[in-house]
């Protein structure tokens, strides 16, 4: 896989929110890539910047959020610098997105079919009739009665709405689909069904997935690689199985221990003490240091850098690899 060109390459992405309290850096110099057909998981607590990163990749950040640094390459082309018109044509055609809130992601006053039609017609010259035919095929594909094209969103259950959105995300056969917590708004049984549906569709259609969730246990069985985000930074990235077997970063370990395992002996669910830092005023040095069980006063001064400690396994932690020079000025730029 290493000698192939990545489908998506995110380089040094920074997203700032301009709030009355000052600049809040929600995404802080993150870099990663996604290979064609690969499923990459992005996990972290609420507010760690994972959804913001997703919106930045798709180019739909809204005020007061702004991408202030970095580049996003899609098949070698820098999409972040595209003019708005070209970008509008690009998105959904090549990268689509399944939104977190199935309940609110559809326009309540338009029929499901019409919401397919306007999307298809924004990208292709097709008649309404053909676009509706395509919508019916797609609905059938995600297990919904094709007659539902004439339904309004409020006439569908939460699970059905999420399936509709998945069908919409598939409509233009994009190479990459970003799934931003696609199942959080649904109950557990429906969650399972939707995930299986996504897995089957992915196997069949071979699109790449950036799967965003706070549920690490879900990612381990579902994705190829996993990136862990904390306070706007990627703190660890590795192949799913490896991360599961040998989590390196204390935060990852903490996340792992926050979920009960379905098999194996009973164990204590420990969780992580404390709460995520205030991003308007992040701690200097390692951002996890106030909550880290291994931390020493020295480490609170030095900012750890993401580095490869084993082939394909990247960690940003003082417990691993060589010492870094003092970089606390970087942490103070945000304040």
């Amino acid at each position, binding site marked *: 896989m290493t000698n192939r060109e990545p489908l998506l390459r995110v380089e040094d992405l920074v997203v700032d929110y301009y709030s009355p309290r000052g600049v809040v850096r929600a995404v802080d110099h993150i870099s990663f890539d996604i290979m064609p057909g690969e499923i990459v998981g992005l996990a972290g607590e609420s507010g760690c910047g994972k959804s913001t990163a997703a919106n930045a990749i798709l180019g739909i950040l809204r005020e007061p959020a702004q991408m202030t640094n970095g580049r996003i390459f899609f098949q070698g082309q820098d999409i972040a610098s595209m003019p708005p018109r070209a970008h509008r044509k690009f998105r*959904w055609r090549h990268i689509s*997105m399944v939104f977190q809130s199935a309940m609110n992601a*559809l326009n309540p006053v338009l029929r499901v079919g019409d919401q397919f039609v306007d999307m298809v017609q*924004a990208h292709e010259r097709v008649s309404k009739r053909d676009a509706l035919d395509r919508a019916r095929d797609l609905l059938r594909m995600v297990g919904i009665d094709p007659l539902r094209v004439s339904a309004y969103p409020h006439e569908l259950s939460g699970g059905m709405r999420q399936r509709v959105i998945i069908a919409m995300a598939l409509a233009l056969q994009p190479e990459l689909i970003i799934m931003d917590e696609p199942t959080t708004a649904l109950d557990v049984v429906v969650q399972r069904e939707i995930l299986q549906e996504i897995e089957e569709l992915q196997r069949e259609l071979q699109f790449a997935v950036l799967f965003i969730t706070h549920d690490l246990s879900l990612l381990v069985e579902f994705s190829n690689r996993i990136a862990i985000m904390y306070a706007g930074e990627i703190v660890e990235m590795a192949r799913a199985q490896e991360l599961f077997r040998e989590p390196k970063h204390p935060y990852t370990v903490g996340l792992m221990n926050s979920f009960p395992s379905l098999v194996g002996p009973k164990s204590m669910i420990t969780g992580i003490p404390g709460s995520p830092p205030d991003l308007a005023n992040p701690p200097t040095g390692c951002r996890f240091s106030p909550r880290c069980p291994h931390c020493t006063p020295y480490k609170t001064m030095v900012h750890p850098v993401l580095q490869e400690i084993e082939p394909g396994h990247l960690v940003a932690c003082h417990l691993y690899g060589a010492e870094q020079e003092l970089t606390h000025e970087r942490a103070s730029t945000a304040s």
Partner: protein
Amino acid sequence: MPFLYRRIAFYVIALWTSLTLNFLLPRLMPGKPIDAFYARYRLEIQNNPHFLDSLRIELGLPKTPLWQQYIQYIVNMLHGNFGISYSFYPTPVIDVIRTTLPWTLFLAGTATILTFLIGTFLGIVVAWRRGGKLDSLLPPVTMFASSFPAFFLALLLLYVLAYIGGWFPLEHSYSGGTDIGLNWPFLTDVADHAILPVAVIVLTGVGGWLLGMRNVMINTLAEDFITMAHAKGLSDFRVMMMYAARNAILPSLTGFAIALAYTVGGLVLIETVFSYPGVGFTLVQAAQGSDYPLVQALLMLITVCVLLANLFVDLIYARLDPRARTQ
């Protein structure tokens, strides 16, 4: 279409209730209409003792109990038999309405629709570019205009533009001596007379619609379906109109129905200032003259207009918001 039947049943009950109130309200007012006639026809009454009785019968003021009057009243109303106006005696009420209503409908209808369209559209644009130049300019300016009492602004414009400037006519809805009908000089003359009153209503009313639409629209713009619409690659115009404004306009539409209905009876002050021969102007005269038949007929007219406007909005609301169709 059971939705429609349910609504119509509701409106029939509402109509009956308001008819009953119309019957009671003028009778609760101080002063009896016959007193006004006493004053006017004192000599005849002194000379002819039967004059008063014949007057009572002609005016439909028999000395019967209230409940009999009520039944007679309902029957008359349903037959469109509104009686004879006391203050415009001996003109039938229906003729008084026939000459006043079209002017009010024209004046108030034009003004209300214009106000709604302008205000709502500005609200959409201002919310879409929130924090922009237009957004920091239009809401305060239009709210400043709304804070004028309409009659005051009307007097001001009338004085400055019509009296001093002489650019606009001073009173009435058309000039004497024009040939009434669908001809160009008459139509331009009518438009000329309508400009100032319409301008007053639009100027004082636009701010409310603008702010109402802006506030709902800003909330709507934060919805996830707007983000998804952007993500789908739709044009900004489509997202603004079909995704944001289309949802945000629903509360404004209800307000529009109420405003439309009020236009029929609610222009008393404007019509008085401009001596515009409409319903509001007439209603004031009728109330002052204890003119039961005219007051009753005008109030019923207003009620029916309110109900029709509401029914109309119910129907378009159902078209616009699919969630309102099922209950």
